[in-house]
């Protein structure tokens, strides 16, 4: 037998662990066709032949709300796997079965791997496995993926069930919907509407769930049937909202949960006698999420995270800097003066190297965050912030979007924007979309790290905490402003369920950390590299015209003409520090001319002109033309701010052989100081989201109007805040 099976399940159910257990090293990672969701595939030998195993993205549901769900669904429909192995977290049965039920509604053959049995045991949850299997009519195998327990039994069960015929599950969704479903099913079957791929009843349910993918496919397949179905749905929707004040989507979810509960209540799940014994988790939570202690602990933990990150990354960052310095030296001696050398040293090594130099910092930051995430603390944070969020007109679950976007540091606004999809109220959703880009995403981190290291090296962690607080307060205030002006509306309630604390595994944390660090490196080596090269070109061309070059030549001649030939010989032959005093003065004057020439060239370049033209207004915030170039480049991706500053300060460098880090260069440069640096930090927190995020906002908000708004509004806000800070700071300091 050689069958293809898929692993599916909720996020955090242990899917990856089980996949690794089953496939070992026999796996490879690719992408699902057309999208960039990762596809892990592997094989597993069994007694009856080789199994091909595909790891589906972890999802809670099978709606069309997120890319992962659509990918999972499409894969199941297109590939028709012989078995869906649904990994169910035994300690969280009700919620996990919600997905199981949906597989069964699709008519797929399901085997449940009831995972985390050890956790369920510890929490004294008893599950009658046989009964569960009988009532659901699917095989159920208990497993503890982390220990590899139940693997054999699971494989045997899969092998013996792959060939079985299955009966799709039909759940009752209440009389109104059921009657309509019957009618729709008939219409669909008679016309063969989408039935080549999907079950008729399932399509009908999806129409009720207002599933964008299916309704769009429907429109393309048969306009008439599609609008007939929509009419039926509309009628039921109106009726439901008039009689029960609910909508079909809600009804369907309620009935699915109802179905699950009716099974669980038949003695499938029971709690051991001392059920009211507070679980350890709850005990911890009484302190950690306490109204007064909670926030203090939260700030302390974040501060601890930053302290940990900055103190441990300092030394390896030094290594990285020396490494790139050494590379610069090698390139300097290997290449002859000219464009190529400038590209390699100023554009690539000093540009991209500046971004890569922060890899250790990123790594330690992610390590800490992975720990917080895996342990379950991040969920507590969201839980506590929920109260605050509602005061500012955001939905409680917006917190998740904020944390994903980098609320603590090192996230990304793109998935943050996507996470806002779970919000049902369009207004709350919009307010969330527009404010998540203020968080400290992983791309802003190197910018902050650079400036903090250069100008606030005494209090790195404190300043980082301050940055985080400013971004949160700023985001919340903007949300409040938006919610009481252009997107007015009521806040909707939200209940959050906290997962139990879990001691993270070292392996799990290392994998999470590495995945994210690797992504950072990959981005630096691709997107940032590309943009850096373009910006280098923009900072190099058109260069100086002939007369200007001649002017600098003349200055050199003036300097050298008055000097004896002996000193000139000395300059040619002897190394820097052994020069006589006279020769040294001459050399310094010549270097100054070189510097002036490079500086003039840079200023005359395309980017230089753009930067200079903005200087008229940005000077109020303390930014000179080079910073302006960096900020404009930062629209492509925020890391580019660092790489561009790296290139800009490398090009006018007096002595390229002298290895100094970018932060040292900034410290020594004119016009830079803590005031300018913090003004730039403020600007970076608030200004226009990067290009990708803007596109994402446009897609999620359904219009470019809001994307444009976020670019203009955020930049104006950032500028206002920076100017205010810089001007007041200049007076006070």
């Amino acid at each position, binding site marked *: 037998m050689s069958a293809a099976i898929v692993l599916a399940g909720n*996020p955090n159910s242990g899917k990856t662990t089980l996949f690794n257990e089953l496939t070992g090293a026999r796996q490879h990672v690719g992408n699902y066709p057309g999208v*960039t969701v990762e596809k892990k595939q592997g094989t597993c030998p069994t007694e009856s032949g080789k199994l091909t195993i595909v790891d589906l993205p972890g999802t809670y549901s099978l709606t069309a709300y997120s890319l992962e769900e659509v990918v999972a669904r499409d894969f199941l429909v297109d590939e028709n796997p012989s078995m869906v192995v649904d990994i169910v977290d035994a300690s969280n049965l009700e919620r996990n079965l919600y997905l199981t039920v949906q597989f069964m509604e699709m008519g797929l053959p399901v085997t449940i791997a009831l995972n985390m049995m050890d956790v369920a045991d510890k929490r004294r949850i008893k599950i009658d496995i046989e009964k569960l299997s009988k009532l659901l009519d699917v095989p159920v195998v208990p497993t503890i993926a982390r220990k590899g327990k139940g693997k054999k039994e699971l494989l045997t069960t899969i092998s013996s069930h792959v060939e079985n015929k299955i009966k799709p599950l039909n759940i009752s969704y209440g009389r109104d919907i059921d009657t309509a479903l019957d009618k729709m099913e008939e219409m669909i079957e008679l016309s063969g509407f989408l039935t080549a791929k999907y079950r008729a009843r399932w399509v009908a349910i999806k129409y009720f769930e207002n599933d964008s993918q299916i309704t769009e496919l429907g429109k393309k397949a048969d306009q008439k049937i599609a609008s007939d179905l929509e009419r039926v749905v509309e009628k039921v929707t109106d009726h439901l909202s008039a009689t029960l004040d609910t909508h079909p989507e809600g009804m369907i979810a309620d009935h699915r949960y109802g179905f699950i509960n009716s099974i669980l209540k038949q003695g499938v799940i029971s709690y051991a006698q001392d059920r009211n014994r507070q679980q350890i988790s709850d005990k911890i939570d009484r302190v950690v999420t306490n109204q007064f202690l909670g926030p203090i602990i939260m700030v302390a933990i974040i501060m601890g995270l930053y302290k940990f990150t900055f103190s441990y990354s300092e030394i390896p960052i030094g290594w990285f800097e020396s490494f790139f310095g050494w590379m610069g030296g090698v390139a300097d001696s290997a290449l002859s003066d000219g464009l*190529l050398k400038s590209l390699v040293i100023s554009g690539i090594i000093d540009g991209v190297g500046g971004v890569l130099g922060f890899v250790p910092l990123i790594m330690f930051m992610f390590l800490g965050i992975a720990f917080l995430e895996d342990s379950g603390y991040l969920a507590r944070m969201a839980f506590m912030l929920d109260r605050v969020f509602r005061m500012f007109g955001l939905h409680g679950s917006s917190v998740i979007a904020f944390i994903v976007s980098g609320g603590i540091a090192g996230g990304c606004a793109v*998935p943050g924007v996507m996470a806002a999809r779970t919000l049902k109220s369009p207004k709350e959703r919009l307010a969330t979309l527009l404010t998540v880009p203020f968080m400290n995403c992983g791309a802003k981190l190197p910018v902050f790290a650079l400036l903090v290291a250069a100008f606030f090296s005494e209090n790195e962690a404190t300043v980082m905490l301050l940055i985080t607080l400013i971004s949160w307060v700023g985001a919340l205030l903007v949300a409040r402003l938006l919610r009481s002006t252009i997107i007015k509306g009521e806040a909707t309630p939200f209940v959050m369920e906290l997962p139990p604390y879990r001691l993270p595994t070292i392996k799990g944390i290392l994998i999470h950390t590495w995945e994210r660090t690797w*992504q950072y490196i990959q*981005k630096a080596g691709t997107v940032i590299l590309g943009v850096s090269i373009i910006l280098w070109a923009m900072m190099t061309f058109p260069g100086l015209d002939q007369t200007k070059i001649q002017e600098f030549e003349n200055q050199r001649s003036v300097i050298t003409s008055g000097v004896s030939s002996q000193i000139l010989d000395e300059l040619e032959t002897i190394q820097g520090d052994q020069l006589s005093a006279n020769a040294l003065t001459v050399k310094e004057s010549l270097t100054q001319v070189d510097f002036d020439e490079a500086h003039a060239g840079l200023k005359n370049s395309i980017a230089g002109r753009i930067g200079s033209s903005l200087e008229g207004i940005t000077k109020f915030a303390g930014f000179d033309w080079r910073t302006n170039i960096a900020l404009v480049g930062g629209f492509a991706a925020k890391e580019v701010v660092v790489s561009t500053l790296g290139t800009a300060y490398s090009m006018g460098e007096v002595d390229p052989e002298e290895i100094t880090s970018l932060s040292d260069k900034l410290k020594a440069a004119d016009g830079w100081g803590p005031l300018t640096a913090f003004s730039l930090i403020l600007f970076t927190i608030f200004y226009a989201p990067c290009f990708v995020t803007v596109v994402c906002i446009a897609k999620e908000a359904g219009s470019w109007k809001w994307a444009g708004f976020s670019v203009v509004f955020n930049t104006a806000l950032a500028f206002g805040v920076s100017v205010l800070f810089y001007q007041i700071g200049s007076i006070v300091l």
Partner: protein
Amino acid sequence: MDSIIVGIIVIAAVGFSVRNFVKIYKGEGSCSCREGCTTCSSKGACKPDFSIVNKK
């Protein structure tokens, strides 16, 4: 020689970046970690994987 190599590199960078941005614009790369964000909240994909349920 120098200029030719530099020219090729710059053109390649422009091509690569433009292609990237077009892809993102068309929505093909909107959720890709490599082209979009540095960190995705989960393995290879941009899903928030915090174990929090939005219960009604």
